[in-house]
């Protein structure tokens, strides 16, 4: 637990160092394209990759995030109708969310 905290602080430490290194044109394009696919710049992508060793891409993840927000708003409105088992529906949605969370965390 203590180790986690230390790692977390290091991740957010001030960025004072600069890395310059040479790569081929093809390698640069590859890194650039892969970063763009994840809506990151090259620096963010390489740092993220070094921390996590692997990146789990959730297809349509950004749309899913928006839909989750919307569906929770709808559930909120439905919750006033006592005859609709809203929490049961929320449980089902969250099962899916939990599964994706576990995959993202590499479990």
């Amino acid at each position: 637990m203590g180790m986690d905290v230390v790692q977390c602080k290091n991740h957010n430490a001030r960025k004072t160092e600069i890395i310059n290194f040479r790569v081929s044109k093809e390698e640069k394009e590859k890194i650039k394209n892969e970063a763009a696919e994840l809506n990151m710049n090259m620096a963010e992508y390489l740092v993220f990759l070094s921390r996590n060793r692997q990146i789990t891409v959730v297809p349509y993840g950004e749309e899913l995030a928006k839909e989750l927000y919307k569906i929770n708003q709808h559930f909120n409105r439905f919750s006033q109708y006592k005859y609709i088992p809203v929490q049961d529906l929320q449980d089902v949605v969250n099962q899916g969310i939990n599964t994706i969370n576990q995959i993202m965390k590499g479990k």
Partner: protein
Amino acid sequence: MAILKFENRTPRSLLEMYKYMVDFNKTGKYGVFGIGVDPVYAVQQMEFIQGIFYKENILHPYVQIIFSFDSGIDLGVLTICKICKEIAYVLVNDKRQILGAIHFNGTANIHCHYMINYVSIRGELYRQGHSVNYYKEVINQILFNYGIKPIIYYGMNIFPFAIVG
């Protein structure tokens, strides 16, 4: 008088803060609500949004804001919940998950803890956007509509609240 406080520090993790906020002994049956998030699974769903945008390792995963009513307010539980929800929408400038927990019990002043996801549903990090006084002014308008004593702050326009006293 009412109080609005932005907590800069987040020493508790998302889960620890959640457990503190939703303590049934403090909130009771109607005290917990969510905007864009299921209050029962708030931690998982906030982590999900952070994970989707590769921001699960951020130092401050949430922003905590506390709104406290004046002591001795004479309002029903559901009205208090309604006010706290209205305030929640004021506190964010974009679509962002918010968990609210109103602590009714064991306190002299009924207050609401807001846990705002640091990552929006579009992947943007939290920015306060306006000065604290701006938020106080807008919240005071809500309080005025319910006849509640406002948040007092330096430079406020005192006139609309003269009747509330």
